[in-house]
């Protein structure tokens, strides 16, 4: 397994980074989100408010016109009657009865009809009350109608002691002055006024200048009661005045007020704000919910993304560190390699001298022997033997230094035909002592008459040595110093030359086998090896037009097979 240093606890640098990333990841979407939501809600608020108020204004306006029309029409009715039947005609009780009946048929709001002479005496009356003969010259309404010719009264109790209002008109001049008066059914009038309904709490009613109810208020307010609110009464002018204000009972209403009946009466249309702006409030709640959900969504996402990001960064940093370490190790090993070339050179010089000395000794001993100067004895035998042995060992040293020097060069690859028949023995010789020392049984089967390959000899050596060394390591790991076996086969397979190196070592796990040719991948502990060997071999084999493949069984063994095209 590739060893990794245990990850250090989150360092302050990472915490700062995390916080910064988190902050920006939250802010970045939050700001536009909140902005959009707020601006949207605010505008919606505004628009709805305006629309609602506008609607109320329209209702109030239309309703006022309707009520005013009603009043005007009733007066017109009276005018018609006055003109058609005249004072004298209407004095006849039967006529009055008929007229009232006719009037009521098409305008049921008329309760009664009364004819008054110039002195305010009720000279003829048709209706539910016994009022005939009563004098009204002091009544405010009488005085008003005489003065203004038409008059619409406020609701009052009068002689009949029940709330009602009258409309009257005066005809004639001077002594011929006479008044026609009718009572309007307040119940019907209230019904008409009240007809406006909007929502749950929307209502309309009429008050006079002093705030006295002229119609019954649905939510509480009898005729002639004083309305607890003075809203709209202090606002003169044409058109509809609107406001949002608290009513006497504490709830807040939207008010729309407008004057009618010569500014004597105020039409009040009102609706509770909650009721009027229900759509608005709902939208605001929805907006809030969205804000909360969206906001928490943003935060959650930001946190998870940030964590993922920081984790990734840490991992990348770790890997980089690891790679750096491996690079350092590789560099060190490369240096050692370089130095070894120097060592080999240094050793060659004394080796040369030793060799020549040995040659001289050997020559002298041989000569002395030939000349009969050397008695036959064990000592002489030992001497001769020893001298020869020195030569053998010098040869051995020379082979080692030559091997190192050949290997340590980094010249551009010189591709030549490499005859495998003498290539393999040379390589095996380089490694046979290591095999012996490690207790590994190395078997080499090179079929004779193998065609040569086009390769740089040193590179080919590098590949074979690397594979053999790996095999030795694996075998040592698995079997210690006894029982390890490595077999090198070189044979023709189809039209390719296949070199396979088989070992009975610890094998490569399925998880690792895909990575072994990756640079810097190593299953050895840190410090041992660079992790570059196989990746370099791969490169070399590829450049020779060959392929390298591996199969392995953990705990059983591994086989590397290099397949090369023969030199054509």
């Amino acid at each position, binding site marked *: 397994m590739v060893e990794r240093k245990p990850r250090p606890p989150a360092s302050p640098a990472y915490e700062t980074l995390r916080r910064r990333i988190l902050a920006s990841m939250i802010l970045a979407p939050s700001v536009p989100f909140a902005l959009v939501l707020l601006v949207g809600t605010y505008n919606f608020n505004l628009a709805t408010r305006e629309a609602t108020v506008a609607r109320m204004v329209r209702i109030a306006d239309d309703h006022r016109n309707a009520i005013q029309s009603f009043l005007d029409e009733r007066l017109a009715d009276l005018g018609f009657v006055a003109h058609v039947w005249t004072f004298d005609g209407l004095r006849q009780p039967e006529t009055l009865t008929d007229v009232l009946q006719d009037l009521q048929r098409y305008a049921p709001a008329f309760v009664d009809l009364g004819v008054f002479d110039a002195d305010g005496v009720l000279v003829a009356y048709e209706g539910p009350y016994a009022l005939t003969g009563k004098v009204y010259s002091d009544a405010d309404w009488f005085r008003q109608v005489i003065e203004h010719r038409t008059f619409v009264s406020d609701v009052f109790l009068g002689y009949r002691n029940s709330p009602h209002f009258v409309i009257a008109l005066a005809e004639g001049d001077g002594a011929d002055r006479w008044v026609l008066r009718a009572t309007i059914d307040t119940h019907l009038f209230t019904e008409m006024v009240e007809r406006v309904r909007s929502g749950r709490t929307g209502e309309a009613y009429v008050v006079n200048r002093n705030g006295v109810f002229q119609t019954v208020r649905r939510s509480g307010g009898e005729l002639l009661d004083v309305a607890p609110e003075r809203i709209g009464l202090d606002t003169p002018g044409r058109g509809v005045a609107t406001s949002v204000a608290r009513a006497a009972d504490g709830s807040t209403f939207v008010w729309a007020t407008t004057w009618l009946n010569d500014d004597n009466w105020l039409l009040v249309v009102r609706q509770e704000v909650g009721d009027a702006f229900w759509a608005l409030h709902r939208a605001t709640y929805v907006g809030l919910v969205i804000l909360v959900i969206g906001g928490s969504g943003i935060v959650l996402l930001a946190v998870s993304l940030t964590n993922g990001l920081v984790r990734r960064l840490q991992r990348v940093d770790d890997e980089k560190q690891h790679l750096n370490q491996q690079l350092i190790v590789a560099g060190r090993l490369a240096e050692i390699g370089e130095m070894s070339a120097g060592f080999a050179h240094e050793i060659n010089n004394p080796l040369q001298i030793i060799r020549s000395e040995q040659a001289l000794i050997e020559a002298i001993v041989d000569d002395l022997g030939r000349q009969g100067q050397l008695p036959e004895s064990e000592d002489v035998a030992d001497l001769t033997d020893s001298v020869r042995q020195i030569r053998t060992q010098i040869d051995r040293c*020379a082979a080692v230094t030559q091997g190192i020097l050949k290997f340590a060069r980094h010249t551009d690859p010189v591709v030549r035909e490499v005859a495998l028949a003498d290539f393999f023995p040379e390589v095996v010789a380089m490694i046979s002592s290591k095999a012996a020392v490690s207790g590994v049984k190395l078997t080499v089967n090179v079929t004779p008459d193998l065609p040569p390959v086009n390769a740089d000899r040193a590179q080919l050596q590098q590949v074979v040595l690397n594979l053999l060394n790996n095999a030795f390591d694996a075998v040592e790991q698995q079997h210690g110093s006894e029982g390890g076996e490595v077999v090198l086969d070189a044979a023709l397979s189809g039209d390719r030359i296949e070199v396979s190196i088989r070992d009975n070592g610890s094998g490569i796990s399925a998880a690792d086998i895909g990575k072994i040719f990756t640079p810097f991948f190593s299953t050895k502990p840190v410090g041992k090896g660079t992790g570059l060997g196989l990746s370099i071999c791969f490169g070399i084999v590829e450049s020779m037009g060959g392929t390298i493949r591996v199969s392995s069984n953990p705990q059983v063994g591994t086989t590397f097979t290099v397949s090369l095209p023969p030199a054509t």
Partner: protein
Amino acid sequence: MSRLNLMLVDDEERFLATTAKLLTRQGHNVTTATSGQEALDKLEQHDVEVVILDVKMPGMDGLQALREIRIRFPLVSVIMLTGHGTVESAVDGMKLGAFDFVTKPCDIDDLLAKAEDAAGRRRDLEDKIRQARLLTAIRSPRELVREADGRPEK
């Protein structure tokens, strides 16, 4: 093995001494030099067939010495003594006209075999030159006389 006229050039004195002794025992004529310059000087005075020349020496570098020898003593064959196997300096040496090379530490027998070859080549060359001269002598006695006055062709 016939008697060879050899020169050994190496900065290791001990090696020179011992190898010279060895070669002398075997009946060859050995001159030694410890530097390229000394080698060139001695070549003026001695008749040498084969020079065994170390590539790496202080002062005049082996290849430089080789060049000089080839220019000034073209009939002398040079065998390079090099530290590693097939390598640039040996290849360069061959390009510059060295006859062969031997890797350090060198095997005496191998060295001698190559020296023999080198000497053989020189002798062949000398024969050819003599033959050529004989031929020209047959053609033109006048030229023979002229040549006899001057030094033999270098």
